[in-house]
């Protein structure tokens, strides 16, 4: 439910802001305001329907580009509204209305885009999940709508400030649209890929999730500012007695306070839902603590069978010679009477090194949510963890440090350790080394350009005994070869 509330908040709230501020800008009387609200709602729906239609025809990205272009085009036109008396003219209203419609349609489209990765309901028959999710969407739409109306009321009171906010909101949104358009152009080869362009796209993409929070902050600020201003200036009273004047003033204040409270409550509700979703609910599961192991003098790691035979996942980690943190785990595949251990790297050939977690009695791949068939752990294939070479010696499992070294390339996490320059033997930190070179999959670190060049010229001279590391695609070969 909160997921869908958050999706509506993220997708539609920016459009509600723009429409509310525009509506107050063109100083619409009550009837026009109603029209604006209806139009915006219709456009949101049209955008959502458009997304589904485009989805069926594989034309989602084309429609996305078209909508963003339209929004951008009308934004450029509408910027002239902010300062000119054009705002009150018919042309100004048409431009403002078109901008509102474009932004609303885009927002409906984006909300559907966000929702399309989720499953709304597992079946077409009415069920609890579908009702709860639909309630989330409905609640989200109602709250966004109320927030928009409250914002429009606030913007009437402080129109100068509202103009500024509108200008800022449109500018920020335009930057985001530009980023998305540039990404689309780069993907379609309409633009040549350059570092600067990729960087701009990356910035815009990284900033996008935060923009809606900034808009909420701006909306709340506007609501408070409008109340403060309202309290300061008396309502227009005609020729009435001072007593009646006071009562009118009190009534107006009460009204203003109600609008402020409504606006703040709506924005707060959206913000809470969105924050909960972003910070808490979408958090990935975390791996259990790993026991750090180091090889003995013979270059082996020995783990007592009895200590890992209880049926739970026992995670260990090992730091490879170049600082890669290699995780592996041991698990009893059968029951306490039949101890047969699965000894595997904590990584999958398909899903990468996200790892596996234990939930109750199930072993689950974090990346793809596959539940593993426990007796098959240790066999290659599917989403099973990559097997790790080992031997069982009496009551201990013996894993060669070299076997773990070979698997170091499966893992991306690197910890800071002291390494030796293979040429000069000088000690340095792997993360701070000025030069590095990869040989047989292992990274070597150098203190100077000269050492680096010397090593590159003939790596075998300095590192002949390096074990070649395996690439991820070789994961299932590990067992045989």
């Amino acid at each position, binding site marked *: 439910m909160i997921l869908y509330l958050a999706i509506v908040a993220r997708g539609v709230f920016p459009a509600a802001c723009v429409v509310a501020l525009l509506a107050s800008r063109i100083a619409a009387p009550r009837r026009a305001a109603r029209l604006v609200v209806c139009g915006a709602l219709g456009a949101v729906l049209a955008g959502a329907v458009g997304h589904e239609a485009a989805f069926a025809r*594989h034309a989602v990205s084309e429609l996305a580009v078209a909508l963003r272009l339209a929004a951008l085009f009308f934004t450029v036109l509408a910027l002239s509204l902010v300062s000119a008396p054009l705002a009150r003219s018919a042309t100004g209203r048409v431009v403002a209305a078109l901008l509102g419609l474009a932004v609303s349609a885009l927002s409906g489209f984006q909300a559907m885009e966000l929702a*399309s*990765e*989720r*499953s709304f*309901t*597992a*079946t*077409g*028959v*009415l*069920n*609890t*999940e*579908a*009702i*709860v999710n639909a*309630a989330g969407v409905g609640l989200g739409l109602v709250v966004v709508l109320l927030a928009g109306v409250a914002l429009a009321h606030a913007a009437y009171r402080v129109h100068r400030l509202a103009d500024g906010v509108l200008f800022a909101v449109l500018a920020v949104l335009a930057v985001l649209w530009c980023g998305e358009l540039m990404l689309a152009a780069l993907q379609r080869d309409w633009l040549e890929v350059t570092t600067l362009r990729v960087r701009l796209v990356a910035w815009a993409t990284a900033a996008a999730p935060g923009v809606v929070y900034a808009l909420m902050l701006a909306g709340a600020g506007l609501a408070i500012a409008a109340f403060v201003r309202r309290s300061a200036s008396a309502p227009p009273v005609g020729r009435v007695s001072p007593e009646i004047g006071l009562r009118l003033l009190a009534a107006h204040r009460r009204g203003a306070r109600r609008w402020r409270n409504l606006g703040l409550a709506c924005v707060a509700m959206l913000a809470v839902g969105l924050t909960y979703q972003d910070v808490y609910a979408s958090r990935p599961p975390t791996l259990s603590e790993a026991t750090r192991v180091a090889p003995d003098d013979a270059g082996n790691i020995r783990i007592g069978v009895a200590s890992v035979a209880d049926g739970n996942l026992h995670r260990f980690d090992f730091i490879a010679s170049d600082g890669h943190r290699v995780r592996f785990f041991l698990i009893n595949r059968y029951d306490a009477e039949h101890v047969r251990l699965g000894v595997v790297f904590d990584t999958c050939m*398909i899903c990468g090194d996200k790892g596996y977690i234990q939930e109750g009695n*199930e072993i689950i791949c974090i990346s*793809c*949510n*596959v*539940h*593993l*068939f426990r007796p*098959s752990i240790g*066999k290659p*294939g*599917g*989403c*099973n963890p990559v097997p790790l070479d080992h031997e069982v010696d009496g009551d201990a499992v013996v894993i060669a440090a070299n076997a773990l070294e070979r698997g170091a390339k499966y893992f991306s996490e690197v910890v800071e350790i002291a390494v030796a320059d293979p040429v000069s033997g000088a000690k340095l930190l792997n993360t701070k080394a000025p030069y590095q070179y990869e040989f047989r999959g292992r990274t070597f670190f150098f203190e100077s350009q000269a050492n680096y060049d010397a090593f590159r010229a003939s790596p075998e001279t300095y590192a002949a005994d390096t074990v070649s590391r395996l690439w991820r695609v070789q994961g299932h070969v590990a067992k045989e070869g």
Partner: protein
Amino acid sequence: MFWRLLRQSFLQGARRKILSGLTVALAATLGMALATLSVGVGDKMAQEMRAYGANIRVVPKGESLSLAVGGLDLNPLKGRETLAEADLPLIKDIFWHNNIIGLSPFLDVQVSLGDKGKARLIGTWFQHDMPMPDGDVFAAGVRTVAAHWQVEGAWPGENAEDQVLLGKSLARRLGLGIGASLSLDAHPVRVVGLLETGGDEDSAIIGPLALAQAIANVPGRVRAIEVSALTVPETELSLRARHNSDALTTAEYDVWYCTAYVSTIAHQIEEAVVNASARPIWQVAAGEGAVIGKMQVLMAVVTLAAFLSAAMGVSALMTATVVERAREIGLMKALGASLAEINAQFLSEAAAIGAAGGLLGCGFGALLSQGISAMVFGQSVPVPWIAVPLVTVAAIVVALAGAAYPARTIARLAPVEVLYGRK
């Protein structure tokens, strides 16, 4: 003041309020009864789709063609085509082979029981060590695939060709029990256990696959294979893939193929086994779900009509109230009440009526659904809690919609007219 006016209104016009509340309650009763039936089945279906395991039925391609006309299956290939028993290990050799936790072949054949008439013999593996291409052995058999089968007595031993299970209802019909001897087309067998599944196995004999093959004279062939797999719950992507996997983009296809959806595993089984068609078995979806799914639109239309007439009832009663309280409204206007404040008065009255009627309807509807269920399905259904807020909210919305028109007429009342009594 707001609350005092509201209370007064309910005290004075109680009869009319009760009447409109009952109108709403009637519609809500219907809505609640239908929602209870629908949500109960929908939840069961959703649970099935979200489970981390599923069974897949593999049949020959010709078998899966649907040629049903008027309820009769006219497929000429029905029961003729078979799969090779030798292909079974191929199923454990697909990309997601580690997720396949059990499989068992089936071959059914009509057998004569001598003077006791005819019966259906289902040949299968009870517990069979299947050699794998990589030299391993996989413990296949019906005991993992059909975990819900309840056997009284013992399961037949694997290599004992003369031991069978007897379905409970067939046993009752024949008057036989554990230890009885039977002759299936002149093959003597001994009943070692009685089977209860709730399905059509209850009226069949379950025997070793080799026996069924010998009787049907199709050595090395099977009619169907059931596969039990660990899967990932269905998502939007897998539903689309199930519909048509060719319509996916390359990236989507890769994600789908590399995720253990039941549709992926079925697809890979079809790739591995020649001439096979693999389909997930959705028990609820294929049974009650299909019935409710078809009725759902009809139910929605009926409920909508009921709520619509309730809204009209509320509207009529509310109009009468507005006319009756015209002088009061005029006075409020004259004293400076804003239109919004007067509207709020009437709309909150309607909302309260809607809420009360809705809750009342929920209670009646829950009872009604129990009655319907007892009559139609012969069992009680659990009342889903979610239906209560759903129906109540719907009732409030209906009451508000009904009050919207009378509330608009308030705006047209001029204080001077209603207070003075004439134009």
